[in-house]
């Protein structure tokens, strides 16, 4: 879907939410849900930052680290991909305090989701880095660059562009998993929805709004990533021949 179609869809969903906000049955729910959506957005952004950091680190560790580092990276990836986000979330929320580590629910949320998505991201990053053509490595070697210089200036910038689409999908998964934090008492969009539903039992209006809000947020992510991809590959003219 072109970036234009996506923007149209985003505008459409926002317009629909706005229209519904004027309707009697929907109006009361909108402010509370938007408040929850704000918390959801915060967790998503912070979780995304952690995920990218962990994913790239784990990929680099797995590809170029000494044996203990490779081992650690693999363990991190296997554990966080082999168990679901909810298991990880509950573990961090319920078990850490038993070891004396008392973190705020918000911190636990960002940590669990960031580490979870980061483990999947490591695969993306690894694939993107190894997909950078061998010739680039050889040219950099011929210019006598150190491994670090090669990675930082030549390989990673090119890998970065290849990584953007799959990371975009992962960020949407991250957005969806934020709903889980409602189960550790955080007042995110899902929590607010549940809360309102319990009290008013007006399931359809509430969840229609919730659906539209999540949809709008995921469209924002997709559009942002497309834009990022366009900016980053400026000048690269991938696929175009001279």
């Amino acid at each position, binding site marked *: 879907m072109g970036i234009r179609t996506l923007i149209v869809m985003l505008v459409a969903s926002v317009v629909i939410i706005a229209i519904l906000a004027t309707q009697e049955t929907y109006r009361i729910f909108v402010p509370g849900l938007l408040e929850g959506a704000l918390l959801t957005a915060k967790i998503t952004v912070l979780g995304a930052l952690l995920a990218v950091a962990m994913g790239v680190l784990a990929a680099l560790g797995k590809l170029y680290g000494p044996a203990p580092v490779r081992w650690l990276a693999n363990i991190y990836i296997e554990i966080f991909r082999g168990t679901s986000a*909810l298991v990880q979330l509950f573990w961090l929320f319920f078990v850490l305090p038993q070891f004396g580590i008392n973190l705020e629910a918000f911190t636990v949320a960002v940590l669990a989701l960031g580490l979870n998505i980061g483990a999947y991201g490591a695969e993306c990053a690894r694939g993107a880095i190894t997909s950078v053509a061998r010739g680039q490595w050889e040219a950099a070697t011929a210019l006598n660059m150190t491994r670090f210089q090669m990675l930082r200036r030549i390989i990673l910038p090119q890998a970065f562009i290849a990584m953007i689409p799959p990371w975009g999908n992962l960020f949407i998964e991250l957005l969806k998993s934020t709903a889980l934090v409602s189960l550790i008492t955080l007042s995110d969009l899902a929590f607010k929805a549940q809360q309102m539903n319990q009290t008013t039992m007006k399931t359809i209006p509430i969840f229609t709004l919730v659906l539209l809000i999540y949809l709008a947020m995921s469209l924002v992510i997709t559009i942002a990533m497309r834009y990022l991809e366009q900016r980053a590959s400026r000048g690269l003219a991938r696929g175009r021949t001279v």
Partner: protein
Amino acid sequence: MWDWAFAFEILPILAHAAIISIEATLVGFVLAAGLGLVLALARIAFPWTAWPISVLVELIRSTPLLIQIFFLYFVFPSFGITLDAFTAGVLALGIHYAAYCSEVYRAGFDNIHRGQWEASIALNLSAWTTFRDIIIPQAIPPIVPALGNYLVALFKETPLLSAIAVLELMQTAKIIGSETFRYTEPITLVGLFFLAMSLVSASLIRAAERYLNRRPAR
């Protein structure tokens, strides 16, 4: 810290709960694979359904599974039907993953060379026979690993059913924790169980992939 005696004590309880988790997984997956196939076939058999189905699929894939579980559990009572938590949960899992499976089937069907369809028409085969004898036997084997991956994904999502109090593994672990104030052992054991199942199924799927991709001797 870690109490081995306690861990062994709760194992039987968790084992019982694991059965519920596995039941939910299997029923949910049967629903997902079946409904997914229906959706994929409908798009081909009745082209006017293609657009509504893709919108539905997009909607399901873009919103959290947890929300869908809540929705299904709470929406039915407003119509006077009460579903028990297990049924609602499995229904939600099934519909959610049916959306993903339908995409897998779609890719599988798309990969069938056009000539197969055309030969079937030339031989005057009925649509039903074409699907049954020509298309499906060719489309399914390559996509089995992808379906397998969704089976595993579905299994890993069963803890979400704890949100509507289904007595699967995670819910049981939380109950043990709240009753004994020892959360470490139950939740860690649940985590290890999922990890083990994930690793085992990953190698099973790889083996299935190798088996399906073996080339017959010519």
